[in-house]
Structure formats: structure tokens, C-alpha cells
């Protein structure tokens, strides 16, 4: 019943767009009935090929909501990810992208997170700002992204903190599970004192850590503008896929509570979204 209802809605929507947007019409019906998700096969807490990430759970929820089947196109989420998955037509939606990513059409943001500091609980460091003088002597770990930079790397560089910063490749050794986790493991292993890391990694892997870790969100971002440490996250579709985007927006509005529960289960540090919407 629910399935037919959706299909009817879909047909109506299609009808409405058929005159105005024939391109959109051509792009959508080929995969009606299946939600085709572009995802990384080895990148918890976001996704993996066994469906264990929170983006997997959200995708499952969306597919169930649409009355659709669920299919994945898995690829390493590197700089060419969008071009070779969504752009190549192998799948139709990326479950999590920054809400202002230019390369795709984004839905409404459904959560916002922040970069965090992680340290060993026993050390009781409670670092909250990049201007904290202790960062000049502690050993700090950051993720390195090919030729670009994560905000913590840039903020530290701006504070002149460079020599005591260790880089961990975000796409590191792909043969091991969840390559980005090496940065958080390095705190537990005492290779570094502090990790400055994107919140979803920090929350998930610190909860799994073999020794207790302390997580504190980054504060004092204004001093580093235009650098940002919190980002609203939305779903991304091809710029021509207005219909799918509208449907996903409906899903996000309708299932806000269920989505939030999934995020909380995975210990994603949530912050207020711009415009007062809470994730």
C-alpha cells in the first residue's frame, strides 16, 4: 500500500516536471524502484560494504521509506569519488556531503558536526582551542588529504605549530579496516598526545578505544575565519536530479527523529545547524 502510494506520488511528480524539465525526466525513471547509493566500502563510522555505517543505516531507512530496493556503488571516497560514482551514473545519491559542496545538488542539511580534539582521559588535557599554548609542545595528529588540508592542519600552521604535528593519511592503507581510524588509535598508542579530527570519526572511534579518551569540540573558530570547524551535512545528488532531491528532502523532514537516533547511536558529535535547525 505504502509502496503504491509512493509510486503514485512519484508519477505525479514526474508529470509535473515533464514539461519543464525533460532532462530530469530522462535521468530518473531508469532506476525507479531502486535507491542507488554511492558509498565508501571501508570507512566507518560512515559506511562499509557490510552495511555497518550510519550512512548505511540512513540509506536503508530512506529505501524503506520510498518502498525501494537498495543498491550500492562502492568506491574509495577520494578526490575523484564524485566524478567516478555519481558523475558516471553508477549511483544516484551520496548520503553525506557538506551542504555547500559545489559539485553536487544538495538536499537540506540533516545534521551538523564539528572538528574535535581527542586526548587520553588520564592526561586530563581538555584542549578546546587552537590557540591553547600547550599545543606548542604536545604532539598533535591530524589527517592529511592528498594535496589539500583539513581545517586543523591549517589552523595549527597559522599558529606556527608545525614541527610537532604528525600527519596521518586519510586514505592510508586501504587493506586495513577504516584507514582514517589510525589517527585516533595513535592517541591510545601514545604516538601522539592530541588528535584534531572530524567529529564523526572522533565520537565513534573514541567510544571503541581500548583506553578511555576525552573528546572536546573545537571552540574559538571565529578567530580563524574563513576557516570553519563545523559543517552542516546533507545528501548529494546530480544537479539534474531535482525529483530525487525533492523526495530526499521529504524523507529528511519526515524521518528527522529516526535519523537523529542513528547519529546519536554512532556517537556523532552534533552541533546546531545554521538557521536554527537542530540535527
Amino acid at each position, binding site marked *: 500500500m505504502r509502496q503504491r502510494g509512493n509510486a503514485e506520488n512519484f508519477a505525479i511528480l514526474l508529470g509535473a516536471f515533464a514539461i519543464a524539465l525533460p532532462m530530469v525526466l530522462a535521468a530518473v525513471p531508469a532506476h525507479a524502484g531502486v535507491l542507488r547509493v554511492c558509498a*565508501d566500502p571501508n*570507512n566507518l563510522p*560512515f559506511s562499509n560494504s557490510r552495511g555497518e555505517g550510519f550512512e548505511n543505516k540512513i540509506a536503508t531507512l530512506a529505501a524503506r521509506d520510498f518502498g525501494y530496493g537498495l543498491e550500492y556503488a562502492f568506491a*574509495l*571516497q*577520494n*578526490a*575523484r*569519488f564524485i*566524478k*567516478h560514482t555519481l558523475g558516471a551514473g553508477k549511483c544516484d545519491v551520496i548520503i*553525506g*556531503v*557538506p551542504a*555547500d*559542496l*559545489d*559539485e553536487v545538488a544538495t538536499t537540506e542539511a540533516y545534521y551538523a558536526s564539528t572538528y574535535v580534539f581527542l586526548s587520553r582521559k588520564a592526561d586530563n588535557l581538555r584542549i578546546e582551542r587552537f590557540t591553547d599554548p600547550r599545543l606548542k609542545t604536545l604532539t598533535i595528529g591530524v*589527517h*592529511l*588529504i*592528498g*594535496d*589539500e*588540508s*583539513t*581545517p586543523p*592542519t*591549517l589552523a595549527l*600552521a*597559522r599558529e606556527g605549530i*608545525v*614541527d*610537532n*604535528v*604528525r*600527519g596521518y*593519511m*586519510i*586514505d592510508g592503507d*586501504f587493506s586495513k579496516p577504516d*584507514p*582514517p581510524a589510525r589517527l585516533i588509535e595513535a592517541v591510545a598508542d601514545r604516538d601522539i598526545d592530541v588528535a584534531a579530527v*572530524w567529529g*564523526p*570519526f572522533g565520537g565513534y572511534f573514541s567510544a571503541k578505544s581500548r583506553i578511555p579518551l576525552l573528546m572536546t569540540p573545537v571552540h574559538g573558530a571565529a578567530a*580563524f*575565519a*574563513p*576557516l*570553519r570547524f563545523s*559543517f552542516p*551535512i546533507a545528501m548529494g545528488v546530480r544537479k539534474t536530479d531535482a525529483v530525487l532531491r525533492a523526495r530526499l528532502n521529504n524523507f529528511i523532514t519526515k524521518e528527522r527523529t529516526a535519523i537523529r537516533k542513528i547519529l546519536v547511536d554512532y556517537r556523532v558529535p552534533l552541533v546546531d545547524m545554521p538557521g536554527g535547525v537542530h540535527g
Partner: protein
Amino acid sequence: MERLNRVRKQAVGFATLACAALIAARTSADNLQSMMQDDRQWVMPAKNYANTRFSGLKQINAGNAGQLRLAWSFSVGSNHGQEAAPIIIGDTMYVVGAYPNELFALDATTGDLKWKYSPRVDPSSQGEACCDVVNRGEVYDNGRIFYNTLDDHTVAVDAKTGREVWATKLGEITRGETLTMAPLAVKGKILVGNSGGEMGVRGWVTAVNESDGKIAWRAYNVGPDKDVLIGPRFHPYYKDAQGKDLGVNTWPPGRWQIGGAPVWGWLSYDPQSNLVFYGSGNPGPWNSNERPGDNKWSSTIFARDADTGEAVWADQIGPHDLWDYDEINENVLIDLPINGQTKHVLVHPGRDGYMFVIDRGTGQIYSADKYDTVTSTTNFDLKKGRPVPVNALTPQVGKNISGVCPASPGAKDWQPVAWSPVTHLLYIPHQHLCMDFKTSEVGYIAGTPYVGATVSMYAGPGGYRGEYAAWDILKRKKVWALKENFPVWSGTMVTAGNIAVYGTMDRWFKVVDARNGTLLYQFHAPSGFVGQPVTYQGKDGSQYIAMLSGVGGWAGAIANSEIDPRVRNGALGYTGAVGDLPAYTSGGSSLLVFSLPPGKANAH
């Protein structure tokens, strides 16, 4: 005693073996060297070890070039940037296409296809190449053709049959490494360098045995001295290159591991000194604030022993690069009278806009003169061997910087120059672009948001984007220059017949008078040019000129549909500078071969 004898015997045995190996290697080198001097053939992309791209042929000359016509053509079948030079061995032409890197053997006179070799190239390598899936050519030695495939393999193919002899994997796609350069054959070894400076790779040059495909030596350009092959023979000319483990100590801790400095340009070789010369690429990451220090040995010219890879000297002409000025450009080996003495020099047209003249033996820089608009530095300090930066243009996070010239591709990129011993001029195909830097664009990798730098490039002063220039190395000045609407991204060649040849991105194949730049002949080709012209004599006695047409590469990827032209900073900022290219050309894959009509050969 017995034991000593045995040791001695072994030692003698080894010496004899080593001698035999030496002789064998020597013969092959001499053979290739004599082939380089035979102007009927063109045995490597750069024509010869000195990288002059000069041919003594003069059947086609400034007097009759206006009568050139298309003799035959051939499709290499993949519409990506065709940057390769065909080579001609005897009566056979060999040419490799862009990805998927098929190799074709053709009758050089008739264009008949003799065989085709199709390597199995990993399709995922396409995603790793920063700037279109190009290949810059193949080399010949000892009955085999050697070239690189995009997915990090060097292959040896039997020149007669097209059968694969060996294929050796030299790098990892998953680490962002690809191979795009044309290797160099020297004394039984194939020298190869990696690409991927934009992907956080660690640059190297590797020597592979021609016989079995095994790695003989590998020299990294970043890291500790033992990896860079810096040892007792290393005697750099400049003070800032002296010291232990500078490939580690001039970086923040551990950062050299993704320090870039790849080798995707040209190698040259001086048989007299047995030295190989090449330039390394830019350091990574692009944001220079994260890597205080000189970042050695990025943007450096190296001289290495061809047999062992040991570094002999190194000039870091772009310390702590701010602008992505790879210094992978070719080094042309010539002898010049300087201060009343004949000096063995290498001429390096720098990405940074300076024409360097450097002593091949010592690394001393004799001169460094601007050959295009340069605002990123004020001048090059010859005493220190370093450029003098303009502090107002130092990039900072959040600061928008405009008017940086040259733009990231430099005053000249990979597209090789030619040197004529007849006119004593250097022919330089190059771009004329400036750029703005902004940090704003949001990116997302492995679930991690970040703010990246946006680069926007545009035509330099005067409103043109490219130039074909003739440079007098002794007088250290430009003699003449032809302005081009688009960057001149093709290579060039020059002959004893005083013709100089190049192609434009807007599809014109051009032959000009090497003495004054007068246009002698032009042909409107199927697609724009980013290839390398070569010339040879067919078995019918006619001189031919061959060049691949097929726009692409970093500059031209927009025209072969790799990039959305609406994204102004697509192709690492190049799209904005050439956004109108699709109005002139589409991608292509045609080899074009020109000659004079029968009977016109000797008209002067």
C-alpha cells in the same frame, strides 16, 4: 691460503663478468647513440640524449615548406590529450596513444599498420591522473620499444613483432601514482619517473634493466640521503644544498613522505660525464604554510650517475615552492662560449619564468633571465642559487592573492623546446598566464570536510595566452615571438632546413621560418595539438613531418569533455583560462604526417 685463493678467483671471475656486461652495455649505448645521429630516424621523443629536437634534414626547408601537404594519417583511437612523440626506427614508426596506451607500429612511409600492442591498463588509473590521461612517448633500444602505461607499469615490447617481453610494476595507483612520462634508454637501463605531485606521492626516478625488467636502482627526491642516493660523490655548488638528510630536515617531521617532487618530465644524458639530468616536481601539499622549510629536493635539477643513480649535484631552483612550479621541464645539453671559454651547460627553461644556463659538471648557474612576465619573484640570485620572492604575494589561509605571474603551469610546462645549432636559437612553445589564489571551496574526502584553495587563471598582460618564442641564449634575450590565443601546449622541433614546427590548441599545425618566425605553412587539423612534432626520411627518400593531433592534457582537458566548463577552477584552475577552447576544438586522436608533393623536394 686456499680460502684466499678462492676469494681471489671469484674476484677475477666477477671482474671478467662485469667487463663483459660493460662491453655489452657499451655496444648498445653506442648503437643507440649512432642512431640518434642518423637524421633519417628519430629514435626517442627528444631526438637525442641532449634533448635538442634538431634534425639535419633539409629536403623540407624554408623555401618550399609552403607546399607541404598531408601524406597520410592514422587514428590512435582514444580522444584524450595526445602528448606523445612518434619515433622512427628504420622504416617503422612507433606511436603510443593516451590511455589505454595502445602502441602502434606503422610503415613510416606508407602508413600501413604493421601491428598493435594493447596493454591491459587498470581503468582506475584514469581517476588518479591529475591532468588528463596523457602519455608522452616511447623509446627504442636493442630491438625493443619501451614505454610507460598510466597504471604504473613500464613495458618492453619486441619492435618487430609487437609481443610483450616484460612488464614491470613500478608504483601504486592507490597512492596516487601514475606514469605519464617518456622513459630514457641509457646503457642497458630504462629510466622512469612517477607522476602524481597533486596526489601526495613521494617522487622518484627508477632504473629498470632493459634485459629482464628488474629494478636496478631507485632514487627518491625526498627523504633521507640513503633514499635520495646522496653519498660521497655528492658535491652541490650552492651552500643551501650542503648538509645531511636535507630531504628530511627541510620539512616538518615526517611530511616528506607525501612531499611530492615527482619526475614526470624529461631526462637528458651526457655520455662524456655519464650523468643523467632531470628536474623534480613541486612539493606537496599545495598549501605552503604547512611545510615551512626549503622542502628539498622538490623543484630541483639533479645530476646523477647513469649507472648507479648516485647524486652528483643538485640545484634547488624553487626552494619552498609557493605556486606549483614543477621544475620537470627539459634540460637541453649544449656547449656555449661563456667568458671566453667553452662551457658544457644545460639550458633549463624554468616553470618559474627564468631561462637557466647551468654548468653540467658543477651545477653552477651562469645566468637566469626572465623569458615571460614574472611577478612571483623579483629576480634570481645567482650567488645564492635562489629566486628572490615577492613577500606581498605569499599565500596565507583566507587571503585572496591576485596577479601572480606566471600561473601554476608556469611560463612553460612539459612542452619541450628545440635548439638549432644553425640559428643558435632556442625555440620555446609556452603559455602566458597569470592567476588569482583564493581559499574558499569546500571539499570532502573519506567523510571529512575541508576548505580547499581555488585557483583562477587568465591571460597575462597583453591579453594573449600563449607564445612561440625564439630565444638567443648567448645574448640572453628574445629574438622574435609569435603570440597565440591559447597556451602553446605542444612541443616543437627545428631542422637544418630552417623550419620550426609546432601546433596550437585551436587546431593549427604550423611551420615557421626558424630565422624570423615567418609563417610558411599551416594546416587546420581535426583537433588541437598538445603533441610533439618529429621528422624523418622515408624509404622513398622523402622527408616527412609527423605529429599527433588530439587536444587535452592539463591545459586542454576541457575540450575532451573531462571537465565541466562551468567550473572555473576545474583542472586545477586551468578551465578558467581556456574556457572558450571547446568553441575551437573537440578531442581527437589523429596522427598527421606531412611531406612535399613529388617533384617539389628540391625547390629552394
